[in-house]
């Protein structure tokens, strides 16, 4: 709340178009190229913080338009086994929200300009201090948040703080959300709106719901911001199918599965196969090609 940070914010946004503007730009660019924006997810600190840094740079290189960076939490109720395990690995490495912010700072220092959205749960942000967290996000060059357990009714304070800091606050809409409520949520969402493709938790699925395309069209019709779709999307075929309708396509668990295959748990820390970053990059390139 100090006067000082407002100055930092203005300078930062002007200098490099960060926050909501950076996300808007990413969608505009994809639209101009007549394709969906591609939005991969990884957990910060899985399998370790140095590899996360390499992964962010690799995702950016391979054509990610926006990167979702998971802030690990001990009790991730919206996540399936794959992302739960990923969070657990990060927590075992002692990763804190402070480390996640530092990671963003590092990739910005290395020249990565891709918008980064922090995805996680409310309590770690609350304990950090809402204002302090937002100020720090601006300072390191993070652009927005997706907080899985912060529905619109509970989000007044965070929306206010995100807004004065120019950060995107991305809400989720689910298949169970009535369309009138979806409109209300979409109007409050900044940057983009996250459409949850399945009634359920995160995790790669072989089949997506039958009526997904129709549901997505309905949500898009009421949303003033671009609509990204995520949960369960794991193959180039699914990406291809959705790329005709969605403004953005989010892939999480399928990427984490590639990471997981390269990691062996040891008594202290994890042993990591040296091909990890290369293999993730390969997988991402296949998905990007399908868009």
């Amino acid at each position, binding site marked *: 709340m100090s006067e000082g940070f407002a100055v930092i914010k203005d300078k930062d946004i002007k200098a490099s178009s960060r926050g909501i503007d950076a996300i808007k730009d990413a969608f505009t660019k994809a639209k101009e190229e007549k394709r969906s924006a591609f939005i991969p997810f990884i957990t910060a600190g899985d399998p370790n913080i140095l590899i996360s840094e390499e992964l962010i740079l690799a995702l950016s290189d391979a054509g990610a338009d926006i990167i979702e960076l998971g802030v690990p*939490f001990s*009790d*991730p109720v919206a996540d399936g086994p794959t992302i739960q395990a990923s969070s657990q690995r990060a927590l075992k490495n002692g990763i804190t929200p402070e480390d996640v912010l530092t990671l963003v700072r590092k990739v910005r220092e290395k020249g990565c300009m891709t918008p980064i959205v922090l995805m996680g749960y409310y*309590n770690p942000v609350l304990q950090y201090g809402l204002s302090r967290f937002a100020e720090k996000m601006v300072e390191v060059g993070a652009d927005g948040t997706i907080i*899985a357990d912060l*529905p619109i009714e*509970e989000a007044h304070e965070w929306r206010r703080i995100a807004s004065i800091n120019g950060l995107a606050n991305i809400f989720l809409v689910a298949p*169970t*959300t009535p369309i009138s409520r979806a409109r209300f949520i979409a109007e409050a969402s900044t940057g983009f709106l996250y459409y*949850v493709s399945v009634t359920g938790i995160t995790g790669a699925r072989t089949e997506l719901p039958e009526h997904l395309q129709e549901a997505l069209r309905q949500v898009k019709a009421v949303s003033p911001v671009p609509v990204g779709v995520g949960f369960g999307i794991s193959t180039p075929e699914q990406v291809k199918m959705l790329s005709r309708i969605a403004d953005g396509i989010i892939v999480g668990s399928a990427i984490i599965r590639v990471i997981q295959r390269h990691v062996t748990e040891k008594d202290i820390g994890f042993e990591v196969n040296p091909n990890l970053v290369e293999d993730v990059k390969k997988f991402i390139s296949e998905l990007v090609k399908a868009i």
Partner: protein
Amino acid sequence: MTTTTKKRCGKKAADGRFGPYGGRFVPETLMPALMELEEAYFFYKKDPEFKKELAAILKDYVGRPTPLYEAKRLGEALGGIRVFLKREDLTHTGAHKINNTVGQVLLAKRMGKTRIIAETGAGQHGVATATAAALMGLSCEVYMGRKDTVRQAMNVFRMELSGARVIPVDSGTKTLKDAINEALRDWVTNVRNTHYVIGSVVGPHPYPIMVRDFQSVIGKETKSQIKKVIGKMPDIVIACVGGGSNAMGIFSGFVNEEAVKLIGVEAAGKGLDTDFHSATLCVGSPGVLHGTMSYLLQDKWGQIKGAHSVAPGLDYPGVGPEHSMFKDTGRVKYVAVDDEEALEGFKLLSQTEGIIPALESAHAVAYLKKIAPELKKGTSVVINLSGRGDKDVSTVAQIFKEKKNE
């Protein structure tokens, strides 16, 4: 929330807030279901047919009203005070948990849900849910931490006998906290046909209010029973607090009786200065877990810590939002007794009265023993004896055996 619901409720915390606590911090997928549940609950709460059916079940099936028994030998042993035990241990399935589960399952049935899920720690809430589901012919699945399925094998078998499926949870700490996570994930996935029976005054709105209301039968009965016996309100009411449903149940009858001192007893486990306790209100700090804002056991980064108690039903790193408010306002005094003291309470009640309490309830007895020397002769105290100790007998036998060998 809709305005009609607000009008229907018209009572404090209609929006699910208890001061800064409570609320609804859940994935969007669940929001419509919580609104539907809220709407249905506040409707049926006043529906004469629903009330009649629930009252009949509480009387003929659960065995209410439960007695308020004066424990005279215990009172003498504690220096001449008058101790009254609210005998929730005498309900069907042996703990207060059943008051809530029959209410919620009946509600779920009215809402057209066909499947019931629940979490359980000690297994008492799981047994009570499985029982209610069997009574009303709904399918039931219960999430239980892998560690607890081993510690409480008898309750696993009781649930299975009642036709429920017990699903062991291997994530995280493998105890109650993670069983709730898993039940929430199930609910997110199957929300259209499933009702999640939460077992305590925790979770997103409307659960803390709804569970308190279903448990408030304890407080109502106690209030009229004690009046009949001593002609006035008691001086003190004591209950143990894990999530806090039995405490909320009995306190709700006395919250507006300002002269009655209310005491909630948490589990100090191996000591408040260790990492092995469940004294959320005594030493925790406010945060968000399992859909609600309340006191929590957490580290400085907001990661939730594991909880410990010899009493598995108190083993939870959160607590009800209304208790959190009562802590701040000072209406209820929250204290903690450790595992050793609880075991002493367990022995004391068994020996003086021939009543073996649940280890959870033994915490309330233990705290009374602790403060008894300071109480005036004739002071009247009500203890909510929330459950019976059959489930704990083998655990306690094991502990006493180890002590002998030390």
